[in-house]
């Protein structure tokens, strides 16, 4: 901790002293002082931070000058997660996070405790919260071990396959950003188009003089480099994040461990799972690869990722869905499609806006002849987009669908990478029917459900269906009080 904080001052000292005469003499004592201060500061912070597991709450006290004492009642703790970054991992330390749903900065953290202490702490908090036992903390982790069952794990082969599908060009964004930041280091101005033109076709004509074949080879080499870089980026990001991925069923919930350098260990109590989402990608879908995400109460906007199965076939996902207390829609499920009017109206809107844009571009081309070539290109693009949006709406109308059964609400939406949301009827919070001016005239509506930690909605369904679904769902909701849900 302290050392990490000392890095910046050290750099500042080194940087600031570049131009001094006899800098060497002055720097050493200053560096020593900075290191001493930060180490001492770290030690003081460590000395002054302490925690206590009380009868009904966790307390953490800290601060050297401003003392803060925060207490969180056990019932409010949604989840306890352990996180290990690289350095603490080498030293066998963990950071304990108590997720309260407050999100962001207000989360309660404890950095660092030893691994064993972290695990014991988590057990203790969980037991007290669930009211299983309120006695003193006991070292009974071993007794839980036989009941755990591995639901999903990724071997290296799967991990690599997954990584290949995570093709990412984010590295180019980073390079471009860096080029903008450090452009003073480059020999010429990267953002100057004329310079590039000069390089490509300038006085030397050296690229133009290479001949077609050579140019084609150069382009293919560039493309190949791009794809290799994209693949490598995707692969390394995936391996870093999901190395040693393991999902287990424990008596306390679903336990997920993953990470190569930063290892995380998250436990999601099953009864706090509000909804599930089965997601996929444009290409991987063709090969049957899907991911399973959990929407839970402890999920805040920042820590978004509660992926419990990152990359698997549906038959591997099905058992996890069952353990989470949900069910995948069976073949006998009667699906309903949104009102054709909804998608027709959407398509009509999109097409008319784009057609108007194309018309405007054409007009501009005739009025200002020197812009004509650009206007023609723009017109073509708009017409293509219009066709695209019409096709897309048609496809969505054919494939968007929803269903309800006795316990669940299913919504499947999306074109190239459709997403299936599964929510428990009992765990919905509110039901809203919404209609805009067009929707009211045409007799369809959006049905939106309030889900803790997520969103779920059926869009553009006939008003009568929306009312029926709402009446049915509300009947289930009103019958069971939320606080008396099983689990």
């Amino acid at each position, binding site marked *: 901790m302290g050392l990490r904080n000392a890095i910046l001052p050290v750099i500042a000292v080194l940087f600031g002293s570049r131009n001094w005469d006899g800098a060497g003499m002055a720097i050493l004592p200053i560096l020593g002082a900075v290191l001493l201060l930060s180490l001492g500061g770290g030690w003081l912070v460590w000395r002054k931070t302490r925690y206590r597991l009380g009868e009904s709450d966790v307390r953490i006290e800290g601060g050297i000058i401003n003392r803060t004492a925060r207490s969180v009642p056990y019932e409010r703790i949604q989840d306890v997660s352990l996180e290990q970054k690289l350095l603490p991992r080498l030293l066998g330390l963990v950071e304990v996070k108590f997720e309260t749903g407050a999100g962001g900065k207000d989360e309660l953290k404890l950095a660092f405790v030893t691994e064993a202490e972290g695990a014991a702490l988590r057990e203790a908090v969980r037991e007290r919260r669930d009211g299983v036992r309120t006695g003193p903390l006991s070292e009974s982790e071993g007794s839980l071990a036989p009941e755990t069952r591995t639901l999903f794990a990724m071997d290296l082969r799967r991990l690599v396959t997954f990584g290949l599908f995570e093709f990412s060009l984010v590295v180019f964004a980073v390079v471009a950003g860096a080029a903008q930041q450090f452009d003073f280091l480059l020999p010429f101005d990267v953002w100057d188009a004329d310079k590039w033109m000069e390089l490509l076709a300038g006085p030397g004509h050296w690229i133009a003089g290479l001949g077609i074949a050579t140019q084609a080879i150069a382009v293919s080499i560039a493309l190949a480099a791009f794809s290799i870089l994209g693949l490598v980026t995707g692969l390394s990001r995936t391996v870093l994040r999901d190395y040693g991925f393991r999902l287990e069923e424990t008596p306390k919930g679903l336990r997920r461990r993953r990470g190569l350098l930063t290892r995380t260990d998250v436990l999601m109590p099953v009864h706090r799972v509000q909804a599930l989402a089965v997601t996929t990608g444009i290409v991987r879908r063709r090969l049957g690869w899907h991911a399973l995400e959990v929407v839970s109460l402890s999920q805040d906007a920042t820590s978004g990722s509660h992926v419990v199965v990152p990359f698997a076939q549906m038959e591997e996902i099905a058992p996890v869905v069952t353990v989470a207390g949900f069910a995948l829609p069976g073949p006998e499920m009667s699906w309903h499609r949104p009102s054709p009017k909804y998608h027709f109206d959407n398509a009509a809107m999109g097409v008319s806006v784009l057609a108007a844009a194309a018309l405007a571009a054409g007009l501009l081309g005739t009025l200002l002849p020197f812009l004509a070539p650009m206007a023609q290109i723009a017109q073509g693009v708009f017409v293509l987009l219009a066709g695209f949006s019409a096709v897309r709406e048609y496809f969505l109308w054919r494939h968007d669908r929803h269903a309800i059964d006795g316990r669940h609400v299913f919504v499947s939406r999306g074109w190239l990478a459709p997403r299936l949301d599964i929510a428990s009827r009992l765990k919905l919070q509110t039901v809203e029917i919404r209609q805009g001016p067009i929707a009211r005239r045409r007799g369809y509506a959006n049905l939106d459900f309030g889900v803790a*930690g997520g969103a779920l909605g059926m869009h553009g369904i006939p008003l009568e269906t929306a009312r029926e679904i709402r*009446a049915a769902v509300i009947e289930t909701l009103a019958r*069971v009080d*939320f606080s008396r849900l099983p689990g």
Partner: protein
Amino acid sequence: MQQSDRDGDELTPLHPNYVKSLRVSWLIGTLPFVIGALGLEVAGVLPRGSFIVPVLLVALYAIVRVPLTRYQARGYQMGGDRLRVVRGLLFRSDTVVPFGRVQHIDVHQGPVERGYGLATLVLHTAGNHNASVRLPGLTHDDAVAMREHIRAHVKRETM
């Protein structure tokens, strides 16, 4: 009352004072624009009346007409175990909150509302969508009574 959850059922209208309180709010809200227009008028940049007339017309519409249409578009229906809130004229929204899902309840009173003896009932749920459902334009006594009724349903606030 129990299974009446269909449109066409009678919605309870809000208290008529709601119109008045909205008018006062709009009056306060439009006042800066009127004053600004007056200032420009005095400065005399453009022909007389080119600022103050349109601004006054818009303000008048906002003060006289908008609160009335808003009042007419809103309504609620208090069931034995659920509250239904309807609002919006152009974009209609019709929300149902079962009492069993309510996390906590606020009865909110702004200064204008207090002047007319009104209050806003706010139901907070755990959902991300519609995390808080507001029902303005109730008399304070009604709002408190509804809160007590709903609270009797909420057995335990923790989840």
